[in-house]
């Protein structure tokens, strides 16, 4: 069974030597024919040393003493002083003596080789210095790809004949059944209607069906009922969110750049790419156009301006501290593996060891992207609306940009010429421009495009991947392995559009196959080709090659329609089989390669989290827009993805790596997943919400309550045994009272009467997932703009101060540090106070406009349970009063424990759960909830 294999990833221990044996068995020139083992030894131990330590003086550029070591012939010829090898007495040969630093010519001259390396070289000499005939891994040694299945044109195979024709509901079934019958096997009986509906609904929308939907399908006995279900699901906007996320795995989507020095880390507009993908899939944009837009929407005939967002496919990758070669490498990889399952990036430093991809081809593509550039001002996706907030945004943006321009003007130089503090200053000013676009909800959406440079770059090969060693020039052109003999250099600009069209061509043998394999993978849990990211010569050939080709041909003939492809697959009897195990088949075909049943699958992270929200009634189906916090109630596809420090919950549940194209997710099982189900506030909140539903609370007896929860969570009725066990649990599950220490940090609003020495503190009622505030919307009708987040907040009107409260867990002498800041240069500023025990003011600071002030308090003594309030008020008016303030309290004695407001910032703890809530949580954590049969 495939899932099992995926779950045990420690299995790829292939001796590197085997690989080398395969490729080094090339021809040779003269003398004794080296054995494969000898050549393997050379490639593994000798060539790296020669490259690193010898070629500089004895290679293509310099030949000191007339000696070259970069070919077999040259080594045999020796130096101006004569042969360097004496086969009859290797120990005495000049090369060995030089390496051992015996005599006048120790080599390398400045520093000796590590002993291990020198010994290996001596050993090599003793073998007779076996050397492959051609320098490097030359083209003539590349594997003969002409016969590899994936590089053959897609054929339209004939549909096989089968014995059990009655089982066949789709041509797909003929291919599957023919293989099964060939082995004397039979397919599994169809799954029941409930299972089929649940499977189809999760597959297409990533959400569970409701009980009513299941009942409707169970009662629809007319012909074509399942097809009608599929049409309904495919028409749902939830479809694009589900399948869009599958594509975002390929696109290594994230909302941040990764590690940066001084610039803004967040991409302001990555979300426009995510939204474009979702919409394109909902609209069933033909897959070929879907690809072309993502690579070259700026040049695509007939593209609309909204399609420019598609190019985020290339630009939302990691930024590698702005190293251009690495950024381009990332783009080549995402395109080649993502669309054609070709590992082109392997050819960055040397010809691909297995696939027919020479380094020259890598740099042909490199030239395409080196000839493309990202404009500083990204294009708008639509004309911005002329509303007041939008104008306010624009005004502030211009003000921040003006500071950048002003600074550059003052320095009288271009940005690249700045050094030291000036460079830092410029970076800080630019960061403010970018941060404003990230943070303001009114920034109009823009597209993360590439454009062609006015004059394209003529690429050169970088030897061993190093730009410092440029080699031959190569044209910008497509891959030889796909383009074949007809290959011509790209003609238009960078060649990006031509590249896109060559990928999305019906003549490309890989693109359609890779696409249908991916769709198959997400329906069945395993692809027809089991390496969805690698169709190269080292991939296993599919067990169903004819089926793969038939699907690929049909997909193209159907106008590259993904929705038609889903329908085709899901209406097959193969897809509708039950998932029950069959012990005899489990032995003969444990991986279910022959598709004798449907694979049972566990919900991935998004579907699981969305299903929890759907069950609790909290699911927020808002479509698109800026990223939401993963703790919010929005669909998971909209959760913010910080690729640098991805929140633990994503990793715990095997989320796709946002750093490189993910062909298929892992499926691990570990206790940290269970801890999330058992202890996280998120799951407890869903359980609590379920029991708070009006439909639940108006029920009057326990049996009804239990049935309600079963129906809501499992979309079925509980049987008598389940009722008995459930009611027994609920009867015995009365919550115990537990003493609880007050939380370390609390978030509230209120006022401070300094003369009376009293703080009126009311907890802020609403948690957004990232901030505490008065309600879901700001300003809140009652308390206005009050808000507290990890790094600061915003006060409301004079009676609605923002109060961050710390409660001492033990008696201590503490010092307080921190910086209060306010960014906006308008309004009347803010005032901040530190108030101990609600009475005494330990610190008092005011910022009148923009600026910052250190908020240090040298020494305060507190007893356990004493409060320290960090109170910010708006002074007279509350406009533009967003502030930053991360107070840190530090114990002056003992281990110097520090309480940092940012580290300690959190949403509400998991609520105490009553008996029914605990029962609901157990149902939500069950295998029945998270597995799909």
């Amino acid at each position, binding site marked *: 069974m495939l899932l099992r294999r995926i*779950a045990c990833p420690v299995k790829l221990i292939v001796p*590197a030597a085997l690989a080398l044996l395969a490729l080094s068995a090339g021809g040779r020139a003269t003398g004794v024919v080296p054995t494969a083992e000898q050549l393997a030894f050379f490639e593994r131990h000798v060539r790296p040393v020669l490259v690193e330590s010898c070629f500089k003086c004895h290679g293509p550029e310099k030949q000191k003493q007339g000696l070259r070591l970069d070919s077999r012939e040259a080594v045999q010829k020796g130096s101006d002083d004569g042969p360097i090898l004496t086969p009859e007495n290797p120990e005495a040969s000049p090369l060995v003596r030089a390496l051992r630093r015996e005599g006048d010519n120790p080599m390398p001259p400045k520093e000796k080789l590590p002993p291990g390396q020198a010994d290996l070289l001596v050993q090599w000499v003793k073998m007779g210095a076996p050397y492959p005939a051609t320098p490097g891994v030359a083209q003539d040694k590349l594997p003969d790809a002409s016969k590899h299945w994936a590089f053959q044109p897609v054929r339209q195979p004939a549909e096989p004949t089968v014995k059990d024709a009655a089982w066949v509901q789709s041509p797909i079934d003929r291919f599957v059944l023919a293989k099964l019958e060939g082995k004397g096997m039979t397919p599994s009986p169809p799954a029941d209607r409930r299972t089929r509906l649940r499977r189809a609904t999760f597959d297409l929308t990533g959400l569970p069906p409701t009980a009513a939907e299941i009942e409707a399908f169970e009662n629809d006995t007319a012909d074509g009922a399942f097809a009608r279900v599929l049409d309904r699901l495919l028409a749902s906007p939830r479809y694009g969110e589900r399948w869009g996320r599958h594509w975002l795995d390929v696109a290594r989507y994230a909302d941040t750049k990764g590690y940066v020095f001084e610039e803004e880390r967040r991409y302001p507009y990555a979300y426009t790419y995510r939204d474009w993908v979702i919409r394109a899939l909902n609209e069933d944009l033909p897959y070929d156009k879907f690809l072309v837009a993502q690579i070259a929407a700026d040049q695509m005939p007939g593209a609309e301006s909204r399609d420019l967002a598609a190019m985020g496919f290339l630009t939302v990758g990691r930024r590698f501290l702005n190293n251009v070669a690495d950024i381009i490498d990332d783009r080549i990889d995402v395109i080649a593996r993502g669309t054609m399952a070709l590992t082109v990036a392997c050819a960055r430093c040397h010809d691909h060891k297995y696939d027919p991809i020479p380094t020259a081809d890598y740099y042909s593509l490199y030239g395409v992207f080196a000839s493309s550039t990202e404009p500083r001002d990204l294009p708008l996706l639509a004309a911005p609306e002329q509303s007041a907030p939008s104008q306010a945004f624009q005004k502030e943006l211009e003000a921040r940009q003006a500071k950048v321009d002003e600074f550059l003007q003052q320095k009288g130089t271009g940005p690249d010429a700045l050094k030291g503090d000036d460079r830092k200053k410029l970076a800080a000013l630019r960061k403010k421009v970018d941060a404003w676009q990230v943070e303001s909800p009114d920034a109009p959406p823009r597209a993360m495009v590439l454009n062609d440079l006015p004059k394209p770059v003529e690429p050169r090969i970088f030897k061993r991947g190093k730009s410092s060693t440029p080699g031959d020039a190569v044209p910008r052109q497509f891959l030889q392995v796909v383009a074949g003999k007809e290959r011509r250099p790209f003609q238009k600009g960078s060649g990006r559009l031509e590249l896109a069209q060559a990928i999305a061509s019906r003549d490309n043998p890989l693109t359609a196959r890779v696409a249908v394999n991916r769709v198959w993978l997400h329906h069945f849990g395993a692809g027809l080709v089991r390496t969805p990211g690698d169709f190269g010569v080292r991939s296993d050939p599919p067990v169903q090659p004819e089926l793969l080709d038939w699907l690929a041909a049909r997909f193209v003939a159907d106008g590259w329609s993904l929705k038609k492809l889903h329908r085709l697959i899901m209406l097959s009897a193969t897809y509708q089989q039950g998932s029950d195990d069959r012990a005899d088949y489990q032995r003969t075909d444990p991986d279910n390669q022959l598709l004798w049943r449907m694979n*049972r699958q566990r919900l991935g992270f998004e579907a699981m989290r969305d299903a929890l929200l759907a069950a609790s009634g909290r699911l927020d189906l808002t479509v698109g827009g800026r990223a939401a916090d993963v703790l919010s109630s929005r669909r998971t596809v909209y959760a913010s993805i910080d690729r640098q420090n991805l929140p633990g919950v994503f990793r715990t549940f095997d989320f796709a790596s946002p750093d490189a194209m993910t062909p298929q997710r892992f499926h691990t*099982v570990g206790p940290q997943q269970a801890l999330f189900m058992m202890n996280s506030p998120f799951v*407890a909140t869903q359980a609590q919400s379920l029991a708070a539903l009006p439909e639940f609370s108006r029920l009057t007896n326990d049996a009804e309550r239990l049935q309600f929860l079963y129906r809501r969570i499992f979309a079925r009725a509980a049987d008598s045994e389940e009722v008995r066990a459930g009611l027994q649990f609920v009867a015995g599950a009365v919550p115990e009272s537990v003493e609880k220490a007050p939380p370390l940090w609390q978030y509230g609003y209120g006022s401070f009467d300094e003369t009376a020495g009293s703080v009126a503190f009311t907890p802020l009622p609403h948690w957004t997932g990232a901030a505490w505030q008065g309600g879901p919307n700001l300003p809140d009708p009652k308390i206005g703009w009050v808000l507290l987040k990890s790094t600061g907040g915003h006060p409301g009107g004079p009676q609605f101060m923002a109060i961050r409260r710390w409660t001492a867990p033990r008696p201590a002498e503490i010092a307080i540090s921190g910086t209060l800041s306010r960014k906006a240069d308008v309004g009347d500023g803010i005032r901040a106070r530190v108030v101990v025990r609600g009475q005494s003011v330990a610190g008092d600071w005011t910022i009148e406009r923009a600026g910052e002030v250190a908020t240090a308090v040298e020494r305060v003594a507190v007893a356990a349970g004493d409060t320290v309030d960090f109170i910010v008020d708006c002074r007279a008016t509350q406009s533009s009063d967003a502030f930053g303030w991360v107070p840190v309290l530090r114990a002056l004695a003992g281990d110097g424990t520090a309480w940092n407001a940012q580290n300690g910032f959190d949403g509400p703890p998991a609520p105490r759960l009553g008996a029914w809530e605990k029962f609901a949580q*157990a*149902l939500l954590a069950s295998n029945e909830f998270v597995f799909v049969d």
Partner: protein
Amino acid sequence: MNHHAPSLDDRFLTRRDFLHKCGMGMGALALTKIMAGLGMGEAGAAETAAGFNPLTPKAAHFPAKAKRVIHLFMNGGPSQVDSFDPKPTLTKYHGKPLPLDLKTERKTGAALGSPFKFRKYGQSGIEVSELFPHTAQSIDDICVIRSMHADVPNHEPSLLLMNCGDARQIRPSMGSWVTYGLGTENLNLPGFISMCPGGMPLQESQNWQAGFLPGAFQGTYLNTKNTDLEKLIENIRNTSMSSREQRQQLDLLLAMNQRHLQRRQQDAQLEARVQSFELAYRMQMEADDAFDITREPSPIRAMYGDGVQGRQMLIARRLVERGVRFVQVWHGDGQPWDSHDDLEVNHRRLAGDCDQAIGALLRDLKQRGLLDETLVIWGGEFGRTPVVEMPTPGSNAGKINGRDHNHYGFTMWLAGGGVKGGHIHGATDEFGFKAVEDRVHVHDLHATILHLLGFDHEKLTYRYAGRDFRLTDVHGNVVREILA
């Protein structure tokens, strides 16, 4: 995915081994009993389900002494000539230009002799400076590598090189490789833990990334400034109910899952998830115990000292003692050891923070018999120049009393885990600038660490994007001279 490889399922342990090595007592046994009671049979449960937890213990390529690693990361780059690599000639040249021409990252000037005194310690008589008197007490257990070298004098690429074997690209970290290869001996705790007080080092969580390996192999980051367990490990505490209530709830869950499982022919992936809840239940208690240093007797706590360094070193010992595979202990957030100015003051303060705790860790491991099977690694991402750093606006305070970054030569040391104690390997030139004898590149260090753990570094590979990747990429030679 991974379809070519021979199955390694046979490397998974038997059920009895599994229960034993995972430190699972009653809970898990009770679980299998429950399963047996439900007609599942005694076999099966742990055995098959274990296959789904990628952290299940596995055997290395060959038997080895080292079972666990503690990597003490002095981020920022401690100075070798002020700590473990004494250079009298440098002192002689103090204030004069060196007859060397090595390009440094920033502008540097004349020789800067070490302001710290060295003296000999132990049977081996290895010299250690006054910065590390406590650590020096264990010098006879320490193998000092004085000939380390890296590729560039910049923090970010050097941190990634030291941790992941590649300076820029996305690669799994050493701790991820090791837990991938060995699993972990205590499934009730994370297998790979990275502790850093106050925040994160430069490059942040990339230093302990899983790269293209499954997320389960990523280091779990703990901010050891925090003392609350719930801030250390996500979701480790239940605030919704008492533990008795939780046990009741899990029993209900178990019974429901059991029925579900029985109707589905005991599918192993279903079983694995059933078992994960029992593991999680135990992890709650185990973690409570592992991180609570107040359970240590006061002489032990006094030996480590009561600062944050003492606390995190003591936690490190408690973790390896409980079978955690790989523990990284970072000095602090940012780049604390980066003494471009005021080297004397700053290095004295930094070493003062951690020396007692490091010395205590070594002695404590040894007295418990843990040092033999625990490999302790000490060092930064590179060292510092023996010459003084000159003023550069924007990058130092211009005091002319600090040292610049130095990747040409620096010192790291290893202790325990099968290395030669009281041994010096390699040497820098007479000024301590460049490694000249028996040079050890970071790749060589990685190859050696993997060897000490029982791996041929060329065979611990993972197929990704069409290629078999390894920690040492295409480099690395085991430094056999330091193996005990």
